[in-house]
């Protein structure tokens, strides 16, 4: 029982990472109907940005304390990662969409942008792995035999906070409602007086910023960075988003936690090599029974 609860806490942490990445997929998909396959690599870029920013801030020249570094690294990482995401949209996706290219071409472009990011990173920085400096004094709390580090709590808290903020943005702010309007009907948008491009840029900013935060938290939890860390995690987060029902914020979270739960439990009670097998099979099963995901609305074909 304790083992189970312990694994539940781990699953919550692991699911937070998935959820933070899945959000980006879901937001962009909701607005553009585009699978941004580069998004997993944006997460990786976020982790590297966190590494460079925190290393620079801790360097003797500035010599900030760890607390200040942490406090500054979070917003800086989010802003810089957003910039990367928005840049991708500007130089790679937008010209294509402007030309009215087939959706598949944009998807392929996204896939290729991801490859450029991860391999470009490997080519530029080399194979030596970077280690994020420790920014948070590690404390272990004991809840009746379940060990929880303060970092884990922060990760889970951050994911929950992001969910609440995003939920507020999407349901209460004008631009958030515009985002939802676009996902319903692109032509309804001018009625709200917000240009489509602003909505798209805002969406990419949000998605990439959240992925950047996820990357940083991931790097704090598992400090060794490598260029391909975003690829596998990204694919899985995408699957989580789809299982949750792509285009729905709640779906990203539920899907992320569900996937993490399955993975952690399989790894805990079965040989860990079965992890991917089970995770993917269960997800396929869910999709088979509910092709539009948990929160997805079924689409009917009109004749």
């Amino acid at each position, binding site marked *: 029982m304790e083992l189970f609860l312990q694994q539940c806490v781990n699953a919550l942490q692991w699911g937070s990472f998935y959820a933070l990445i899945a959000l980006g997929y879901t937001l962009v*998909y909701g607005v553009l109907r585009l699978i941004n396959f580069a998004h997993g690599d944006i997460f990786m870029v976020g982790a590297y940005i966190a590494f460079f920013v925190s290393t620079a801030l801790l360097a003797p020249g500035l010599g900030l304390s760890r607390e200040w570094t942490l406090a500054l690294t979070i917003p800086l990482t989010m802003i810089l990662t957003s910039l990367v995401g928005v840049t991708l949209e500007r130089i*790679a996706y937008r010209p294509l969409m402007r030309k009215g290219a087939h959706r598949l071409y944009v*998807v392929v472009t996204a896939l290729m942008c991801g490859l450029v990011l991860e391999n470009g990173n490997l080519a530029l920085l080399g194979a030596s792995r970077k280690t994020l400096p420790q920014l948070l004094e590690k404390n272990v709390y004991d809840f009746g035999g379940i060990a929880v580090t303060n970092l884990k709590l922060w990760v889970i808290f951050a994911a929950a906070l992001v969910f609440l903020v995003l939920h507020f943005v999407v349901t209460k702010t004008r631009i958030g409602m515009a985002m939802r309007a676009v996902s319903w009907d692109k032509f309804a948008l001018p009625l709200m007086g917000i240009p489509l491009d602003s909505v798209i840029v805002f969406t990419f900013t949000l998605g990439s910023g959240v992925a950047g935060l996820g990357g940083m938290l991931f790097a704090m939890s598992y400090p060794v960075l490598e260029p391909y860390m975003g690829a596998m995690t990204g694919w899985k987060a995408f699957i989580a988003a789809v299982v949750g029902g792509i285009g729905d914020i709640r779906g990203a979270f539920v899907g992320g936690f569900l996937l993490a739960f399955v993975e952690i439990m399989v790894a805990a009670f079965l040989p860990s090599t079965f992890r991917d097998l089970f995770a993917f099979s269960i997800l396929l099963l869910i999709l088979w029974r509910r092709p539009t995901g948990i929160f997805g609305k079924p689409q009917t074909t009109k004749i």
Partner: protein
Amino acid sequence: MQRYALNILFPVAAVVLVVLAQVGWLDRYVLTVVTFIGINCIFAVSLNVVNGYMGEFSCGHGGFMCVGAYAGSLLSVAFFTDSRLFGASLFPPESAPFLFPLVLVGASLAAALFGLIVALPSFNTRDDYLAIITIAANYIIISVVENIDAIGGPRGFSGMKRAVNAMSDVAELPWMLIWTIVGLFVCVATIRRLMTSTYGKGISAVSQNEVAAEMMGINTNRVKIMAFMVSSGLAGLSGALYAHVYGYVNAQSFNILRSTEGLVMVYLGGMGSTSGVLMAAVAFTLLVELLRFVIPWLNDLLHAASLLPASYELSQIWKWVFIPLLLILLMQFRPEGLLGNRELTQVFPRLKRWITFR
């Protein structure tokens, strides 16, 4: 008669290649590259059936190649060699040159069976969800293979070299080159014949307007199953050839990166154009090999010109930056690919006098 130039040209080119390899004018490296071009052609052209003609977005094609590679390897090890796994050989090793097609057919059928499983959920879902299903299938296949210890698990599987050697013992020929050429020929002929028949045009009908297809008497589910099975079966063929050329297989050679390479070739060539994808597969394989030499040369050049810091070496990884960049640029400026949905003869109508490609 002129119209069949391609039908004559292809066998002639094949014979010339085999003869050159036989007399030893092609060194081992060139031979491997040529064989690998053939395998890539089969892989890309087969992916094109689903991603091009049917307009779906399958991105786990490597998984089917994996099934074919393992099925083919197991079959030929069981058939022609004494192994710990299967005991004594099922057939005398001398029969290898004659029974090898059986191995290829078996591998294709095994992969087609997996294609069937992936096709089932594709009935109700399109593009985005199908992408997921195929990615997941790719991961599942690799994970299953890695979890079966009897076939080597994550260590991979070998022993096919002995089967190939058994063929060489009968006659000293570049066997794998020959089988690759045969495989490519069968693959292209199958797709060409399929796509020019009314039966196969059902695939295009589903792609262009699925509702109309359904309402005009086409069993769309069966068409999808057929397209997936043809596509995955031929990918299995490429996998079986790959396994025998290298004499060793590892599930990780068929991961999502392999699938991505397939996507690159298909979209480079223009979806829905077999000749375009063939050209793209040749160009892509050559480009990858070319970059192997160009990158060190560029490295030396840049160092000589002091444009690179001495501590930095241009590595082969750059290959995987250049190729995606190339495709990104292509998507921006010529998104329809090299030939863009059209066959060679439609782009250059004068060729029609010489070849019939459609």
